[in-house]
């Protein structure tokens, strides 16, 4: 892509470094930005710089926010008895989208990974324990991913939270929509059977 000139090539390279963006999409985005009115590019650049400058972690739940307390933590209508623990900020937005959950969140910013030597002290576990010791929370929902790291994280957390007298539950994993029983793996099927419910 040398024939574009240095500054355009640089823009394409920067865009191609973003997650999920291949060289072709990067080229399309770059050309779009260059052909669009100058204000469009200006707005985008400003939005990126501003978000970057203002972003911080909520002092309670560790989610990304631009205020000291995030929107959820400062909402008086949320149920403070129940806490949902997730790995990443994007998991909060996924659960919020379904609107079924009205409790609070805690964002770990990762998961325990023995192979990568990532333990509880590399996550926001200390902040979590401080919250739980305050005594308001009655139930914790472990919503970590159903993979090795997510399972290790849930196991570790349930071992330290249960002795505190707090109810601990794990998200039920069943068969995903569109999957077939025939192709389900052993672990998924076992979980789906355990988490079965009565049909009304």
């Amino acid at each position, binding site marked *: 892509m040398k024939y574009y000139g240095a500054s355009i090539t640089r823009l394409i390279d920067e865009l191609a470094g973003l*997650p*999920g963006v291949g060289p072709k999409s990067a080229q399309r985005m770059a050309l779009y930005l260059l052909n669009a009115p100058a204000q469009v590019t200006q707005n985008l650049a400003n939005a990126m710089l501003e978000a970057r400058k203002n972003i911080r972690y909520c002092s309670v739940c560790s989610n990304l926010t631009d205020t000291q307390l995030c929107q959820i933590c400062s909402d008086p209508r949320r149920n403070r008895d129940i806490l949902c623990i997730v790995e990443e900020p994007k998991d909060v937005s996924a659960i919020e989208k379904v609107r079924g959950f009205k409790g609070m969140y805690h964002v770990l910013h990762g998961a325990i*990974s*023995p*192979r*990568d*030597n*990532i*333990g*509880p*002290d590399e996550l926001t576990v200390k902040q979590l324990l401080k919250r739980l010791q305050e005594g308001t929370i009655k139930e914790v929902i472990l919503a970590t991913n159903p*993979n*090795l790291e997510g*399972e*290790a994280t849930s*196991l*570790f957390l349930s*071992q330290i939270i249960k002795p505190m007298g707090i109810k601990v539950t794990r998200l039920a994993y069943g068969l*995903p*929509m*569109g*999957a077939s029983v025939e*192709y*389900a*793996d*052993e*672990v*998924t099927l*076992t979980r789906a059977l355990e988490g079965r419910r009565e049909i009304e």
Partner: protein
Amino acid sequence: MKLYKTDALVLRNLSRGDIDQLLVLFSLEYGKLKVMAHGSRKITSRKRGAVQPLTLTRFLIHKGRYLDSVRQCEELESFPELFLRMDRICYASYAVELIENSTVEGEANQVLFAVLVETLRQLGRGDPEIIARAFALKLITLVGYKPVLDLCAKCRKNLTGKALAFSPPAGGFLCADCARENSENQMVMCHRGTLETIKLMLAWELSKLGQLKVDSGTRGELYYVLKLHLEYHLGYRCATEMFIDKLRNRNNRYNTKS
């Protein structure tokens, strides 16, 4: 179109893009392999369960020009008991990390493959720490780093006496006299009991070792002997081992606090 079939243990899966994964496998027929599993992170993917680490899977693989890719896969055995306890997850991770870092791509080692699968089964039943140490000993023997156990590695005399030492550069155990002379080299002091436990671990089947009673002093010495030996031969520090140490220190810290 070139396709081949192999049974393999999934050592690791690394996210690539939004829905793909790069798998590191230890296969029965071809040893260590790196293959792409396209679309395996999609929630409806049929491959999803079978490409999770610590799963024994039958793969049908398409030979690519640069990288091979999974065409079909079917789970043969998962080890659900591993996920019930933190120490089991830790030592299973330790085993697969050692396999990944001590084997060469494309070189089959069918005995080692069988040892790994049996280790994952036994980790869910017996004492995970002991199973993991026995696994590491069998592994170093099978990849060609077996330490000298019958004689002093330096003077070649019989190992008499209770106090011994272990030195990876010397190639194994040392008698008390040689240990004194070797004091500047990498070495751990240990008791005869540790040497006897090592011999037992190499001779016995894993299924028998899960019930073996080992005191905490011997456990400690086994830890240092294996750590030193693996670091010397593999040239790196095992990340999972560092994690296990860190978690143990953390637990001790919390237990003494309360």
